[in-house]
């Protein structure tokens, strides 16, 4: 095998595939990148068996062949090469990386040990605006759990709704729902949030083809494909969690609220909630910590409600993550009472909602 390619093109391809290579891979060989050179292309695959990235780059091929190299080492080595053209060639069980001075020799791994990964099946894929999809993923994955003891909650449910594609995630304390209008999927599935977060750094492009298969979700574009093994199990029936009506609501400036919650967070920790008093003037935020001190701030807003005022307390981090995920300059917070879940939306938009449970104080 021998190829010549631009350093930046090569570095980008290796970096994308490297995103799927975990440090705790089940098989040692999965620390490597599978590289195949043929037809003027270098095709690179990285996988931890749950998430697989396949990408390719046009190269000048002097000799075709296949090899596996340690992912991190190869990616870092290519990135550190001087700008310009670099050469890769296999010599006696090693890959030589050379260009404009430096030369690395990289020990090949046994290609026969690499697991047989099924090729992604693009059947039934639908085209989705890449920017919108990434935005939706970023909005909902904040609510996904990282607790591996409850794997179902570490995923994002992708399913069809009345208006189009719906993405839902919850860690049982909060729930985020985003609708992408006019996108109809061929199926539904629970996609690990960890894998979805890699989409932007791997194969995201202006248009992304999305297919939900029986066992995996496949995202593909002109940059390659990202296959993510689906989580098996039933996602909670989230629809029944959404209250029918919210008799009280307040509209607030998003950045002003975020700044105020950020200041209150200096006092609050995960176990100390911040208290919101909603009323005619807007929202008064207070937080008190016995060993440290406290903070109080009024955020002006427009309040409408059946109750003259509502007192409610939230985990500061969950609140600020929900506000941050909401697009728009103004956010609308809808509240039933101190113990029922509240909803945060962008004022005037209904394509995203963030349902947040309060903290009992």
């Amino acid at each position, binding site marked *: 095998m021998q190829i010549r390619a631009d350093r930046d093109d090569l570095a980008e391809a290796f970096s994308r595939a490297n995103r799927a290579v975990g440090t*705790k891979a*089940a*098989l*040692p*060989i999965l620390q490597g990148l599978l590289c195949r050179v043929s037809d003027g292309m270098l095709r690179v695959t990285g996988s931890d*068996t749950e998430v697989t990235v396949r990408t390719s780059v046009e190269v000048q091929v002097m000799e075709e062949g296949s090899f596996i190299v340690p992912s991190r080492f190869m990616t870092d080595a290519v990135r550190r090469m001087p700008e310009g053209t670099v050469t890769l060639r296999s010599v006696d069980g090693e890959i030589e990386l050379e260009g404009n001075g430096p030369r690395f020799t990289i020990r090949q*791994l*046994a290609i026969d*040990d690499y*697991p047989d990964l099924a090729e992604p099946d693009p059947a039934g894929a639908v085209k989705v605006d890449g920017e919108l999809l990434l935005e939706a993923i970023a909005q909902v994955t904040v609510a996904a759990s990282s607790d*591996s*003891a409850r794997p179902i909650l570490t995923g994002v449910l992708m399913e069809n709704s009345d208006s189009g594609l719906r993405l839902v995630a*919850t860690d*049982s*304390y*909060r*729930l985020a729902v985003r609708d992408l209008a006019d996108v109809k999927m061929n199926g539904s599935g629970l996609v690990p949030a960890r894998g979805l977060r890699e989409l932007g750094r791997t194969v995201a492009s202006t248009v992304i083809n999305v297919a939900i298969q029986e066992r995996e979700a496949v995202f593909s574009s002109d940059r390659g494909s990202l296959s993510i093994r689906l989580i098996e199990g039933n996602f*909670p029936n989230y629809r029944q*969690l959404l209250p029918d009506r919210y008799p009280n609501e307040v509209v607030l400036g998003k950045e002003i609220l975020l700044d105020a919650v950020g200041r209150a967070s200096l006092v609050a*920790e*995960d*176990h100390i*909630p911040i208290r919101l008093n909603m009323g005619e003037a807007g929202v008064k935020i207070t937080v008190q910590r*016995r*060993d440290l001190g406290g903070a109080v701030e009024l955020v002006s807003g427009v309040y409408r409600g059946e109750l003259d005022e509502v007192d409610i307390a939230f*985990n500061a981090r969950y609140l600020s993550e929900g506000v941050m995920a909401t697009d728009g300059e103004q956010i609308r917070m809808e509240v039933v009472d101190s*113990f029922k*879940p509240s909803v945060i939306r962008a004022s005037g938009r209904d394509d995203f909602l963030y*349902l947040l*449970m*309060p*903290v*009992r*104080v």
Partner: protein
Amino acid sequence: MVKADGCVAIHADGGAYKPLNWMNAPNTLVEEDDRWLITNPKGEELAIHIEESISDMEFEMGVDPGLEKDGVEAHLQELLAAKPQVLEDGLELVRREYPTDIGPVDLLCRSPGGDTVAVEIKRMGEIDGVEQLTRYLERLSHDSRLHPLRGILAATAITQQAKVLAGARGIRCVEVDYDDLRGAPSNHLRLF
């Protein structure tokens, strides 16, 4: 034992859980009648002479699901910080990792009666944990704002010797059930 990745390990039938000797992959294994010769890329050799072969079995174990460790001290500390009342009724957290000049104590709490309670958290409560908490209590006792002051040693299991020593020093021992703790009620209301 020859593992799927080619690693060769020699185990005894009792005692140590680590192999007596081993050769990591990648390597080359040559099987002869009464000897295995394993050579690694550096040229190092491991020769295993086989006196008697009783059984030779091969199993396909499939993809390694990976090792997940549960119940480590950091997670216990996180769970108990969220629910200090598990240790004692009405206990409220003042701060995690409360600093002292010899290192941070895991939790500093306040009882409904106004006592300051220093909590040391261990996966296994042994005499070392009692000694450690004793040192923290001594340092904290110099701060009059923290009086009256006492200590709790919290662990998933506590040895009898540690309980005796803790009792003699006025330190309470609390054994916590990790699984129960994960499901214990908290002030954070849940959606489901």
